[in-house]
């Protein structure tokens, strides 16, 4: 069969992927730069295409709690938003993590803090990988660097969400959300039947059958020792995620003496920076974390013997750089270069930063 190719915006790819991979429900609220997700879904009439529920909620808070409700019933439920909206969703995300439910959340990041800017940013790294909401929990965070990955990570996200019964965050940004690229689309999958959902999710609130106990979805536990037991169970889960789900990409790292570490849009610009630097005779490689949690700690450490230093390139004041420093543990210099406020760094600036901060020229 011929490949089905289409030119799409990143946000549209998220929406089309949601319909194609058999998402049961999407709940959203408009916010720039990701409103195309719900606009595309509404125009595609997914209810007719697959039976998928798409609803514009009254707020980001309501939308994430709708996701919580549908996820509790074993449904593939998702929402998308951008930074200020994701802040509002943190309450619900914490509940979903605490109730151990599968769910998919997309953050098309813009610059902040506060209302910030509608231009792209990467200042939500801490919020995404360090919890974000209250309590001890983690999300699995996928960072796409292309429109194709926006598309692919929806299906992957749901697979991981159900595998670990944990919310998944796709951490994109305004560039990836808005830019258009060629996308290879997957086949149209149909929604699972209610019977299939009950079989796959025996914990779901689908109505108490005679042959089972009632199902309760809650994150509440008033007994301190039981609550701690649950906290320990979550830690074990995150350990397994760290062991099994690390994803990353290495470009020209084999002979590299310096490594740029960048995810999402920054990784795209960093690729250009590598070319420029190599033309100048500097041996530079790119390490691109695809999962921000679990962070590729081991894989970054493996590069230590061959390299003289690491430069974290982020559209933030320096957030991921902290995790790189923890991984490198003082064995090599780790510096940060970033632009903020919606300013997109130029490849030349990255090379200059590399020269000034690490090479010393």
């Amino acid at each position, binding site marked *: 069969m011929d490949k089905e190719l289409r030119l799409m915006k990143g946000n549209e790819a998220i929406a089309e992927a949601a319909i194609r991979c058999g998402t049961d429900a999407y709940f959203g609220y408009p916010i720039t730069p990701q409103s195309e997700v719900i606009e595309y879904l509404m125009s595609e009439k997914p209810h007719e295409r697959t039976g998928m529920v798409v609803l514009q909620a009254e707020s980001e808070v309501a939308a994430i*709690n709708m996701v919580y*409700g549908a996820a*509790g019933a074993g449904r593939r439920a998702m929402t998308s938003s951008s930074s200020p909206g994701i802040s509002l969703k943190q309450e*619900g995300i914490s509940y979903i993590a605490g109730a151990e439910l599968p769910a998919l959340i997309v953050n098309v990041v813009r610059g902040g803090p506060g209302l910030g800017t509608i231009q792209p940013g990467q200042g939500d790294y801490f919020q995404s990988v360090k919890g974000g909401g209250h309590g001890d929990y983690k999300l699995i965070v996928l960072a796409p660097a292309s429109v194709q990955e926006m598309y692919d990570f929806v299906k992957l996200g749901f697979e991981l969400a159900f595998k670990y019964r944990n919310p998944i965050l796709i951490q994109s940004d305004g560039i990836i959300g808005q830019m258009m690229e060629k996308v290879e689309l997957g086949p149209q999958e149909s929604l699972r039947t209610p019977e299939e959902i009950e079989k796959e999710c025996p914990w779901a609130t689908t109505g*108490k*059958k005679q042959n089972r106990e009632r199902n309760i979805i*809650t994150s509440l536990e008033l007994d301190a020792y039981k609550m701690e037991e649950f906290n320990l169970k979550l830690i074990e889960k995150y350990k397994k995620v760290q062991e099994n789900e690390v994803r990353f990409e290495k470009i020209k790292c084999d002979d590299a003496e310096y490594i740029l570490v960048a995810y999402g849009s920054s990784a795209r610009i960093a690729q250009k920076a590598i070319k420029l630097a190599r033309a100048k005779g500097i041996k530079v490689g790119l390490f691109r974390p695809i999962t921000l949690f679990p962070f590729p700690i081991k894989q970054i450490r493996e590069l230590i013997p061959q390299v003289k230093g690491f430069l974290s390139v982020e559209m933030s004041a320096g957030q991921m750089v902290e995790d790189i420093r923890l991984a490198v543990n003082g064995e090599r210099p780790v510096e940060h270069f970033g632009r903020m406020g919606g300013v997109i760094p130029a490849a030349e600036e990255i090379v200059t930063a590399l020269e000034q901060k690490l090479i010393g020229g």
Partner: protein
Amino acid sequence: MAEIKLEDIIKEENLVYKKSKVMTDNTLHYCPGCGHGTAHRLIAEVIEEMGIQGETIGVTPVGCSVLMYNYMDIDMQEAAHGRAPALATALKRTMPNKYVFTYQGDGDLAAIGTAETIHACNRGENIAIFFINNGIYGMTGGQMAPTTLPGMKSSTSPYGRVADMMGGPIKMTELIAQLAGTHYVTRQAVHSPRHVRKAKKAVRQAFENQKLNKGVSFVEIVSNCNSGWKLPPVEANKWLVENMLPFYELGDIKLNGELVNK
């Protein structure tokens, strides 16, 4: 004198009350005299009588009734504070053939969850909302609620609620009755057997309405809070009749999608 034996008395034909099978054997954590237990029982009885135990999903609030799922033998989800109508929206939309209800207190529904309540009602979600109004925050220890009456003392209005300063009590039920998405809106109480029987009919109606697909059925139950009101149960019920009911007038507000003229 003939000996009286218990087994001669406890016979099927002498039974006047039986615990619903939809209620579990867990001991209720509510204070003695609290209306929550009665309201729970009515919902359980209706679910049992309609034979929809396997088809019903309930959403519990944050507040005294947060642990309602311990007492009901049905699938339930515990929502974040005020968000129950959002969960119920998603449950019903992804499982349109199931019966979905929320059970919420006045702080949950009429303060922090105002947006979720109003918009679920406005969209005409095909769900039942049971709203327990006792004019106070019970679980956190008797703070002022959006429904606290003027002059009523609470731990955050220790000299009585002053409407000029703190706002007056909100009549959520009248407010949501104005929305096109509500089909049945009523205010009931559970402080006397007569009122309990009427409230049960309203609960039944709310569940029956879900077969019609005509929007929200909203049942407010004016209740008491002995601990928060600092009154013994009997006096609390008397206080309810004398103070709550004149302001929160009992009766149907909207029937079959039409406002009731009073």
